[in-house]
């Protein structure tokens, strides 16, 4: 048992901190957000140069073959800077999904361009009726003489406006809530039969609602030819939850630091705000929540390759713990910043919103608490 970072991991963390400090100030971020595209291709290239886009790509496809710990380290740094570039969608979700499910040929086609920063993907999974249940898939993939026809609707596909390809979860079997009969299809964003409505998201990113209407894709669009992709999807989303938990810890840490600094310098009734015992203890409570969130995130990261039940419980735990902690830390950071905290003038609100988004993506804490309870019953049975 050893919980210390390896030298390589420490170097990765240092590099991430340096990059963030030098290239992703809050002002730089604001400029990126206000640009037409809403993200920076230059930053994306730099991610590629730093090797981050290939972090979890197997070495044979040009990546570093690193694991969940490394992803967590990068994500925490991205969280500190509120990076809007679609690292989550491409490097944390698409890459492992392809690596898990794809055929050798698909991997060889899809992964190297990602590593090189030339391809970005988006994960078209959520549907209006499903409310976070991964097995609730209404989008249909119907076999045709030349391949597949996709029919259905996907909501809030994060990073879709920036993606060249979509990974579309679709149902091959006829029953809507069957654990088998689900596949993942690689579809070019520009394919016929796809209508995308793009919009901004809560956290400054971009996403799309996508309607598939007689969208024809070739036979080999089905990742690995697998009609039983749900376990891989669950693994990838659980691990994405772990990665987001690390990101959230980065967000929270900045909020605490900012709040401490602010309350120390802000004078009210003739003394610094931080002289108020109530506020000092509030910040202590924030620190405690962050310690817990960090522990819970680490738990989920270290369970990334465990058996499905352990992994799922750890991910849902992190969703709950990080969600609750994030809420508290963000709300208190806003509260303690007073009026300024509820404006776009400080970065506090931006962190608040990113933490909210992390809370929602892949399911609310309440959803995951119930999932955890269900899994606990499974384990007991």
């Amino acid at each position, binding site marked *: 048992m050893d919980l210390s970072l390896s030298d390589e991991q420490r170097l990765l963390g240092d590099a991430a901190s340096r990059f963030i400090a030098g290239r992703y100030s809050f002002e730089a971020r604001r400029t990126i957000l206000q640009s037409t595209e809403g993200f920076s291709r230059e930053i994306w290239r730099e991610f590629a140069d730093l090797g981050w886009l290939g972090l979890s790509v197997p070495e044979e496809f040009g990546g570093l073959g690193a694991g969940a710990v490394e992803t967590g380290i990068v994500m925490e740094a991205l969280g500190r800077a509120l990076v809007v570039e679609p690292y989550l969608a491409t490097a944390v979700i698409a890459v492992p999904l392809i690596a898990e499910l794809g055929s050798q040929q698909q991997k060889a086609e899809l992964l190297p361009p990602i590593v090189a920063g030339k391809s970005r993907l988006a994960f078209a999974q959520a549907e209006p009726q499903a409310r976070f*249940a991964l097995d609730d898939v209404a989008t249909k993939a119907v076999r045709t003489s030349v391949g597949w026809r996709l029919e259905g609707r996907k909501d809030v596909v994060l990073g879709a406006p920036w993606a060249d390809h979509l990974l579309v979860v679709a149902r091959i079997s006829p029953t809507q809530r069957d654990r088998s009969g689900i596949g993942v299809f690689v579809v070019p964003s520009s394919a016929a039969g796809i209508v995308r409505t793009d919009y901004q998201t809560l956290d400054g990113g971009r996403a799309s609602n996508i309607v598939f209407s007689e969208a024809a894709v070739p036979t080999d669009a089905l990742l690995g030819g697998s009609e039983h992709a749900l376990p891989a999807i669950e693994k990838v989303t659980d691990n994405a939850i772990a990665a987001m938990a690390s990101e959230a810890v980065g967000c929270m840490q900045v909020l605490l630091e900012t709040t401490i600094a602010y309350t120390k310098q802000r004078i009210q009734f003739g003394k610094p705000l931080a002289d108020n015992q109530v506020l000092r203890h509030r910040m202590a409570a924030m620190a405690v929540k962050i310690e817990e969130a960090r522990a819970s995130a680490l738990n989920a990261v270290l369970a990334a390759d465990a058996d499905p039940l352990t992994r799922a419980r750890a991910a849902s735990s992190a969703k709950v713990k990080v969600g609750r902690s994030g809420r508290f830390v963000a709300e208190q950071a806003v*509260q303690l910043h007073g009026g300024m905290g509820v404006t776009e003038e400080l970065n506090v609100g931006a962190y608040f919103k990113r933490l909210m988004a992390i809370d929602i993506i892949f399911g609310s804490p309440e959803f995951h608490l119930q999932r955890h309870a269900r899994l606990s019953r499974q384990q007991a049975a």
Partner: protein
Amino acid sequence: MDLSFSKDELAFRDEVRDFIAKNLTEEARRGQRLTPSALSEKAVFGSWHAALYRKGWVAPYWPKEYGGAGWTPAQRYIFESELGLAGAPRLLPFGIHMVGPVIIKFGSQVQKDYYLPRILSGEDYWCQGYSEPGSGSDLASLKTKAVRDGDHYVVNGTKIWTTHAHFADRMFALVRTADTPKRQEGISFLLIDMKTKGISTRPIITIGGDHEVNQVFFDDVHVPVENRVGEENKGWTYAKYLLEFERGAGFRASGLRRELKELRELIARDRAGSVAGDESLASRLSEIEIDIDALEMIELKLLSDVQAGRNPGPVSSVLKLRGTEVFQAITRLGVDVIGHNALVWEPRRPLYGLNEPAVLPEEELAILPAHLDGRAHTIFGGTSEIQHEIIAKQMLGL
């Protein structure tokens, strides 16, 4: 002890309901529903203000001689409850609840004659110049200076959090007219025409994406001395009087009840049933409703005390504290209810003014911004921490 209304009170309630039915347009209701910030804009409340003005109900709690309605506290409660339940836009409080009562109590006859009718008619749109950057809850630390120059004050400085300064015709402002060791002395209360040369405003965008508040700058702004209310350097007294009004302003429970009802309707609209069937959601709705029931009873007891001529004590702090928390709980639940749709950001503002379809259905449009803007409720008008301080001091003698 009796919760039921008397025959007269019931008749009055019917009158209010009838008035609402006839005068509160669907457009105004929609505008209010789609207003995520604390106050709606004139395009939303305008027709409703006009209707109330015609009826003589714009400022019913003013003394009758100035246009008040001479209501009993029960009538007042009925009036506000019905408006809350109906989802009527709130009229701007700055004239009616704030500067109006100050002018009535401390203003000159000329000021009364000029300003009060214009508040009632809506001709004057007021804003409040109290807070300054750096003052926060410590209002008395304000620094904006007014230096006497003949029959004018020359005002220099800046005010912040000025709600609707970008719409307002006039501002009532606290300014420093003397440097005294006790900071509460040396403050005066001025009425300032927003069109005066030297005034500029800078929008402050909230985290919900709304432009409701501003920073206002004063650069050698000349304000006639006759625009001062009461005595020079006695402004703090008037400000405190006004704050009492602000704190006691309005019954909130009925409005919260309507917001909860709208949330229940949103849940009922969920066709897939994955939301409506969620037990934990049902429990959270009940939890909030139970809070609202308690708040409403505290309001009724406050009313009853006022009616009986008893001093209700600092219970308005309890109402402020819990009312804002319950509001935040409702908006947070709203966010949970719409699931991943809460990730969708609608940048176009105001929401009620959208004339092309949004990504979200209209009933979900204000949920996220209301939740975000709503974080301000526990900050403005006395932070929750300040309310605890008041309760500890005034209610518990601590």
